[in-house]
């Protein structure tokens, strides 16, 4: 690993570029993601830049219900991002289908289509929670570059109960 490469890696972590894809949310999570960029929360002061182009992005924020139509778009955006990359899944609908879970057109969560690194639950999660999710994603990204030790693997909220149940049985 060359000296220059190392500098590029560290710079990518210091100023992560973010692409946001709304699969089909009710806009609740989208406006909270946008609110992170506006003056009250202003993540740009930490070097986080929102970009429209997946080829420039390090972190993918996914919101909304993944359905049979937009899963291909989501897959394409993920494939276009250069590696190493991290995915943050935001909101109850994106985690598991949420309130729409029983509906005929819904896949149960983004993790069924692409690998997800961080789960941010909530309906919608507050901007603070989203920022926290992105910071956690940066740790994941750092681990993928070999700069920091790998954090504990992400778990779907609610999975813990299932796992505990399996252990006791």
């Amino acid at each position, binding site marked *: 690993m060359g000296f220059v490469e190392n500098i590029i890696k560290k710079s990518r972590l210091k100023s992560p570029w973010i692409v946001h*894809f*709304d*699969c089909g949310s*009710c806009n*609740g999570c989208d406006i909270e993601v946008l609110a992170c960029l506006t003056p009250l929360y202003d993540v740009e002061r930490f070097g986080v830049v929102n970009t429209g182009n997946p080829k420039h992005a390090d972190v993918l924020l996914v919101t*909304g219900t993944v*359905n049979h139509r937009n899963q291909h778009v989501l897959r394409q955006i993920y494939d276009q991002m250069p590696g190493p990359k991290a995915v943050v899944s935001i909101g109850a609908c994106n985690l598991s289908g949420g*309130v729409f879970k*029983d509906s005929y057109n819904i896949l149960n969560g983004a993790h069924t289509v692409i690998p997800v690194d961080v789960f941010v639950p909530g309906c919608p999660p507050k901007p603070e929670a989203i920022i926290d999710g992105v910071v956690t994603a940066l740790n994941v990204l750092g681990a993928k570059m070999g700069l920091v030790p790998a954090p504990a693997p992400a778990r779907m909220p609610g999975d813990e109960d299932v796992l505990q149940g399996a252990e006791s049985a």
Partner: protein
Amino acid sequence: MNRTTVIPFGPQHPVLPEPLHIKFVVEDETVVQAVPQLGFVHRGLESLVRTKDFKQMVFVVERICGICSCIHANCYCNAIEDMLGVTAPPRAQFLRVIWSELHRVHSHLLWLGLFADAFGFESVFHQFWRIREHVMDICEATAGNRVILSVNVVGGVRRDLTPDQIRWMLEQLNELEKGVLDMSKTMLQDYTVQERTRGIGVLSKNDARLLGAAGPTLRGSGWACDERMRGYAAYKELNFVPVVEQDGDCYARSKVRFYETLHSLELIREALHRLPESELAVKLPGNPDGESVFRVEQPRGELFYYVRANGGKMLERMRVRTPTFANIPPLLHMLPGCKLPDIPVIVLSIDPCISCTER
């Protein structure tokens, strides 16, 4: 020789966070035809009425659209209440107006910001989103969540306002109004804004009616048509006047939304001052039976609910008609003939809410 080019717009696009896909057929820089493709946000929500009971459905309809969730719930609850033959108590009616108007203010401020962003005026975008946080603070303090409030239930509301909260809300509203008025000079008189919006995307008065436009798109073209004039909830007791502009271009539509924001603040203040004392919700006499229709005014226009029930816990059918659905034909009428750089301005000028439209 065929000189046209097809440019795809969306589904993932920096201007609009929502997955709307439009194919633009352009000749040089001029748009000849616009072909929308929908279905990216379809969640099959209307079918959920058969698996969730009619009280649970309030929480589902709130998630049709996060920006005007309270108004969706308001409309649904009113439709079910009509079917059951009950009326929400007076205090609940006033509280519904307060929260609905808060959502309208936050939706319009959000739109004004996004609209400014569409013609490249980023500092205005940030200013509008900064003052919008006052509304989010009020929502969080009174209802417990910033975006989706879940205050409406069938038969009334779930939360009350204390006198302390009312006093605090009035202070916040004053600050909010000051912030909005500060922006009036930029939004309404600035040379740049006028250059980018005046005479763009014109919808004549007659076309607006023929194409069935709704909400600010209709009122920007000179029709005084607002569902709140019918006086549902507590609007009949409040001093409501629809905001109308004559020009029918993007500038007129942004003016309608700007003045509506100020008028909504007035309505909230009036409702807070005249909040009557009563219980918050009535007891329901049983399960709904029959069918019912209700219309309310969303920030984007007229919202229509049809529900049918057969006396069981689950409803039989629900149908929602949203204002953006009504505004897509006028949009497709406005686009041909415009220049390529004006597309984001015109598309945003109807305030598209794709998650409402496709459900």
